[in-house]
């Protein structure tokens, strides 16, 4: 058993599980539910073994009824529990739009301030040949709708620390994992919360700012290495929490570099990058020496064949090219 306060090397998936287990030990109100989360341990084995420690009253396999069990979690959150829901694929959120947006996201506002302590964890993204209905990054939908905090970590340490914060939060938090990140490992300070609403500089640089999150952040760091070999020093800002947004962290970097590229795996149209670019030009227009550029998935459904998928999704090389374009090189 992992012990809070120690530093361990964990995979992203292990870091998520350690956060859930820590909170379930600390607070008996925390319960876990979702498709295949209990006996099977989750599609990506993130919750494997939790049923052995916490029992089937706190770790619940649900029917394949996303609307039903998300609505059920809302009812539980309003009556004394703190549910952590696993939504097996980000894509399946589209099955449950009414419960997510008309019910869950609006309850606090409609009721005049009732707390809704609930976390929905999901995993999204491509690169696995999972095609159009199992590869999406749909965070823009969740950012458009007021009422949900939206978190998208890129490292095991952040996954752990931000999930601790999410479970302790009295607001609904939508927690986005990426299937490409689960096997990545790194140091994790067990039990150390990371605050929701704070970006951080993942790599320092002086020539250009790359703002990113989730798996694309790791690609941005690789792009920065490639750029360094060409004599360009990129600063990489990990947004981490998309709502609330730490705009000032992006602004502070921009005041150094005066160039901004936003990289994410979601589609470009009306995506997070479009919103961030708008907010940046509204507040930091005088700091910009070039137009803000975006590097996003092409605006087509994620295709199946490898060469087609590669053509649609971001890569370190594509990010590098976009950065050079931003710098006029």
């Amino acid at each position: 058993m992992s012990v809070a306060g120690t530093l361990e090397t964990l995979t992203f998936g292990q870091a998520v599980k350690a956060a859930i287990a820590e909170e379930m030990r600390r607070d008996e109100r925390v319960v876990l539910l979702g498709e295949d989360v209990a006996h099977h341990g989750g599609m990506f084995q993130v919750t494997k073994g939790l049923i052995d420690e916490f029992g089937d009253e706190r770790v619940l396999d649900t029917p394949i009824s996303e609307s039903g069990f998300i609505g059920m979690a809302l009812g539980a959150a309003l009556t004394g529990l703190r549910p952590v829901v696993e939504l097996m694929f980000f894509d399946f959120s589209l099955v449950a739009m009414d419960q997510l947006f008309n019910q869950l996201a609006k309850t606090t506002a409609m009721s005049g301030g009732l707390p809704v302590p609930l976390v929905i964890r999901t995993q999204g993204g491509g690169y696995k040949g999972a095609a159009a209905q199992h590869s999406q990054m749909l965070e823009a939908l969740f950012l458009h709708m007021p009422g949900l905090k939206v978190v998208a970590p890129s490292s095991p340490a952040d996954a752990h620390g931000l999930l601790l914060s999410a479970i302790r939060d009295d607001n609904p938090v939508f927690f986005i994992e990426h299937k490409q990140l689960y096997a990545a490992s790194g140091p994790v300070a067990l039990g150390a919360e990371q605050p929701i609403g704070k970006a951080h500089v993942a790599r320092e640089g002086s020539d250009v700012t790359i703002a990113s999150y989730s798996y694309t952040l790791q690609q941005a760091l690789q792009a920065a290495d490639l750029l360094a070999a060409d004599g360009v020093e990129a600063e990489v800002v990990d947004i981490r929490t998309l709502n609330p947004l730490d705009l000032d962290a992006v602004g502070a970097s921009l005041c150094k570099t005066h160039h901004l590229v936003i990289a994410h795996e979601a589609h470009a149209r009306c995506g997070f990058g479009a919103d961030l670019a708008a907010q940046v030009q509204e507040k930091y227009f005088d700091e910009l020496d070039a137009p803000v550029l975006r590097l996003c998935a092409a605006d087509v459904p994620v295709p199946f064949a490898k060469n087609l998928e590669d053509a649609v999704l971001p890569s370190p090389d594509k990010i590098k090219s976009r950065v050079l374009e931003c710098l006029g090189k």
Partner: protein
Amino acid sequence: MPPAKKPRSQLTRDDLLGLYRQIVLMMRFEERLLAESQAGNLRGSLHLAKGQEALPAGAGKALRPDDYLTMTYRGHGYALAKGVDLGRMAAEILGRRDGLCGGQGGKMHLFDPAHGLLGANGIVAGGIPTAVGAAWSSQHQGLGRVALTVFGDGAVNQGVAMESFNMAAVWKLPVIFLCENNLYAEMTPLGRSTAETDLAHRFAGFGMTTATFDGNDVLEVYDQVALAAAACRAGKGPVFLQAMTYRTCGHYQLDPGLGYRTKEEVAEWEAKSPAHRYAGWLTKEKHTDKAGLAKLESEALAAVDQAFSFALASPEPPVDKMLAGVFV
């Protein structure tokens, strides 16, 4: 073995008169809402439940104060029967500062967790899984509370309703699915949208206890909900209740309710109105007389007047607090 006594046999004379008062309170409250709407004091559409008053009165009496409730936009009577403060409810419906939700919810989104009310809902069937979650929470924490969720016959063709029935049945959750079958989903008769119109028969296949009964008979409503609540508390799992009733007004305040129904049909149900029937029974059984009924009616009217005086005196809600953000 003699047949078990019906739950109603436990009701005292005060209880019986209280049920009548509750029916009349709901009628006077809704009549006042309509008047405020026509006077321009009430924004948006207004969905009244004229003719269906026995259901909230009977169900509310059969529940404990700490039991949970989710309901529809036609649920004013349930909130009242659950003990929600009349003045704060009126204030919410009028969009005032002292409303249940500070004016942010309005009539379709009444919340009052102190009385177990976990939300009225503007989305048909939208609050059904919330009740299932509250029932799960009660079971999990050993609270002994039941959740009742009320919806119309139109709601049963929403997927989330059936997802909820299944989850409640598979986990034997203490939830009562109270379906007010008033024969029309908004303006469409049930038979035009639904092949199996006996909804109790249809949903028995989910592994739930089901029952069909006269929803305009307040004592029958009380019996059925009390039995269902007892079964839930005994761990026997969910109950689906099909209450046969009829909305003698339109779907909302601007719908005369006659485009899709005949005057004769409406008149036939008006003659079976819960207040009329129950008043007749109370006097026939000599629990009270005409003067006694009149006293209950004037008490209800006075309570409604007092509630609206409070609501109309309440100021508009402050804008700053609302704009400060959606998070707690």
